[in-house]
């Protein structure tokens, strides 16, 4: 089992609903976020192209955050989901330095926090909060090892990219372009 997400940059309208859904679902403290939307503008008017990307933890296969954690608080759960165990985290910040996506932040309570792929919902068979609220349905969540999953289908039929693959982290969020 390998959970992954495919996000269609051509369908995304940048409404930030995913951000709000995540903050509500996971009680993210004010002033922080576990996911965010990036708008990339290329060219000059009138020849302009825009790419919108909803970004979050990439739940990398080769996770530098898990590797550098001195206490083992950052660890892999089923399906390759990267989680932080709050009671093991000492708040040293090593994982924050190690993440090329800046997906982690220091929670006001001290521990480090980040996207969990809404593992509590996934275990109940539901989609993560961000995926389930997307008004354009531009996000697909699923198991890469299941040939019938929506993610595999999208990745089979569309061109895609991942973020900063040169960092060597093997990210598992794919952007359909």
């Amino acid at each position, binding site marked *: 089992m390998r959970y992954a997400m495919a996000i269609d940059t051509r369908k995304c309208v940048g409404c930030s609903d995913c*951000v709000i859904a995540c903050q509500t679902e996971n009680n993210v403290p004010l002033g922080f976020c576990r996911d965010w939307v990036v708008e990339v*503008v290329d060219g000059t008017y009138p020849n302009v192209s825009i790419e919108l990307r909803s*970004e979050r933890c990439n739940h990398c296969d080769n996770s530098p955050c898990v590797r550098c954690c*001195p*206490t083992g608080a950052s660890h892999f759960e089923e399906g390759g989901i990267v989680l932080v165990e709050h009671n093991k985290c000492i*708040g040293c910040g*090593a994982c924050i330095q190690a993440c*090329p996506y800046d997906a982690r932040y220091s929670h006001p309570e001290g521990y480090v926090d980040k996207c969990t792929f809404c593992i509590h919902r996934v275990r109940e068979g539901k989609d993560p909060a961000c995926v389930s609220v997307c008004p354009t349905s531009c996000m697909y969540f699923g198991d890469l090892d299941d040939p019938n999953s929506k993610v595999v289908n999208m990745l089979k039929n569309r061109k895609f990219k991942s973020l*900063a693959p040169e960092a060597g982290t093997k990210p598992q969020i794919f952007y359909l372009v």
Partner: protein
Amino acid sequence: MREELFASGRNIPNIDPYLNIWHWQIPIYLFLGGLAAGILFFAGVFTIMGKAHKMPATVKKAPMIVPFALIFGLFMLFLDLKHKLYFWQLYTTIRLESPMGWGAWVLMIITPISLLWCASYIKEFYPNWDWKFKFLNTFEAWVIKNRVIVAWPMTIYAVILGIYTGILLSAFNARPLWNTSILGPLFLVSGMSTGAAIIIMLSDDHKERKIMGRIDILLIVIELFFIVHLFMGFLAGSEAQIDAANLFLGGKFTAPFFTFVVLLGLIFPAVLEIFELKGFKVPIYVPAILVLIGGLIFRFLMVEAGQITRYLY
């Protein structure tokens, strides 16, 4: 033209424009670690070589400050933790993949060794020192008799500690400025150089100062060579690394780096030390203090600049 914007709640003061999670505590911790490693290394090496009697400041005086430096450094690290009450988790896990994990264990080993070393010399400074318990006296007698046995692990762990202060940073591939293996040797040499500076300041013996002065000049030359190497490596690397190097080669860290680290922290003290060896009267405090300040500023700049360098955004 290419422009990247955060359209959502990502533009938050707590996370953007960049995540600066390590503050002034970390460079101080790295500086004290390197300094302690330098002093213990020289104390160990000269003891193993059987020249302890010729180097009183190196072997006896300077190591007295090491336990204080290490404990204060660890306290700095503790201050930087955000989830402080859980710090003991560091010592319930052994994770060799994590530099911070094994570094914490190295400190756990070398701090008691340095305390042992100081305790075995304490009667030379306080002849009336009383250990209160008899077994401590017996233990002290054993250490005094077998200093070489203690010196070996101390020297080896001192080298590991010195390299660790650099590896701690270089293990983060997300920060291109740190992600170079030369940072380990560079921080080791820089730490040894600051250790030598402390020894030179504490020494009353002219011959000892001369030996340490020569060693310090050699270390400074090696350090300069490593710094050139560092930037050569970056400039031959990926775009992220070229951008990282440019912070120091024209960017906003250029002036403090070349003024306080390269010029005042390395070249100028080396020149002063060469003059001193040639027989000119140079107050020995000047080059030593410059080396110490240079080493401290070097760590501040590396920690600060490294957190700005990145792949995305």
